[in-house]
């Protein structure tokens, strides 16, 4: 129970204190990973580029959440609500991708270009009929 729980905590110290040194280590790791991302992007690995980039980004993100944001020391409830948005993002993209790649008439991009062109009709070839 919220109230009973509350008393179990000591009153001097209500959160976990992380030493600056830990933060510094994390910062260095993040900077290194950033450099790696940039370099990785330089080599052409086809569709693996984006995969790699996202994996590295996710590692960085987890570092930030776990350490910078004290996620490591949070309770289950907070973790649930940390995860839900990411799960929903996955569901959203997954759901939408059950659609577009499986359409039998993909978007014709010729049409796009021609629709982009101003609607003004060319003077009728009439004149030279």
């Amino acid at each position, binding site marked *: 129970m919220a109230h009973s729980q509350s008393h179990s905590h000591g009153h001097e110290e209500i959160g976990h204190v992380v030493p600056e040194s830990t933060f510094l280590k994390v910062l260095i790791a993040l900077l290194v990973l950033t450099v790696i991302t940039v370099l990785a992007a330089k080599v052409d690995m086809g569709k693996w580029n984006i995969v790699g980039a996202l994996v590295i980004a996710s590692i960085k993100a987890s570092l930030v959440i776990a350490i910078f944001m004290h996620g490591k020391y949070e309770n289950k409830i907070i973790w649930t609500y940390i995860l839900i948005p990411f799960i929903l993002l996955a569901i959203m993209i997954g759901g939408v991708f059950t659609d577009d790649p499986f359409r039998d*008439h993909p*978007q014709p991009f010729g049409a*796009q270009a021609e629709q982009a062109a101003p609607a*003004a*009709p060319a*003077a*009728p070839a*009439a004149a030279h*009929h």
Partner: protein
Amino acid sequence: MLGLLGQQGSDFAHKVDYAHDVVTIISVICTVAIVGVMLYFAVIYRQRDGKDHETPRIEGNNTLEIIWTVFPTLVCIWVAWLGYDSFIDLRTPPANAMEINVTGRKWAWDFTYKNGKKTTGELVVPVDEPVKLVMTAKDVLHSFFVPVMRTKADVIPGRYTYEWFRPVQTGDFQVFCTEYCGNEHSKMLARLKVLPKAEFERWLADDSEARKLASLKPSDRGKELYVSKQCVTCHSLDGTPRVGPSWLKIFGKEGKLADGSTYKADENYIRESILQPQAKVVQGFPAMGMPSYQGQLSDDDITGIIEFMKTLDGTQKVEVAPALPKKSAASTVGMTPAERGKALFNDSGNMCATCHSIDGSALVGPSFKGLYGRKEKIADGTEVTVDDAYIKESIYKPTAKIVQGYAPAMPAMYEGKLSDQDVADITEYIKTLK
């Protein structure tokens, strides 16, 4: 079974209806059962003379919970299968299906056949033959719905969607647009005409009109269209302005537009005026006077009309045969006189709506709203009451008694085109417009 969805026009309709009827029966049984039980409890366990009686503390019952978790699950699986099964048929056109291109636009349906034949608002197909509609839209989302065929698909700009059906009987069927697309959404209808095979072939092959036009030199083609497309109604060839400017010496003409800016009637201006009539209206003419011919005239047609205009330089007199009395398209059987009148009023052949509003706003001619029985001042100052006789006269001899403040714009084209019966019906319709 129950036939709740009415006539079955396509060969897979019965499958959809079967699924529909099964779920209907299940739903009715469940609803009746549950509501019945609830009412039964309500009656036998009601408080007698407003006093509580002792009740047992029943927290729940796991067996029951399991039963009514599993039972609906099974039913759902079955029903889901039925829907799935019928859907498969809807989505798998046979390889030999005849393809027709469908274009949705605000607010009409255009159909193009493989041999280049084009129709608007009427889809003609052969009976017992699979037809695949390959559809796209010009402007916004539309949706092509043929109730009797049990098929529907949204029509999307910049993409193609399809639907198919195999008609099992001949006849005329309703087509709706079911994706909201703006003001005339509810008017974006089409008719599906299912013909016997031979008749369809004849219809498809019959491009006589098209061929005749194609065979003509552009200026003559334009002349033909001038009559057949009813341009003659509003544009004279002898210089007298009607609803719209006369075409005499119109090509290359310069002048002022309604907004004060100037125009020069070159090819582009004329083309625009045909496709977007409201865009640049010449001063002194009604802004809403002309309907758009978007989709009704091909580029070659427009070219032809422009060429025809070029011949109207006044050097030689051009004669055209009067427009043939056009048969009203609306099937008017079983309508009340007023309804027939409305149909005639809206019929594109008669074009009343071009100049007469029904909402009180004055266009070229007086609005029909509250017209009947009103006293009107005539140009010569005398006063008339709008009664059957006056309306009839005004339709047959428009220029006889012009209401003050209106131009003698109405063409004398209705005598012989509209029967006395038609006129009477239109009068009835006007009476309803209070």
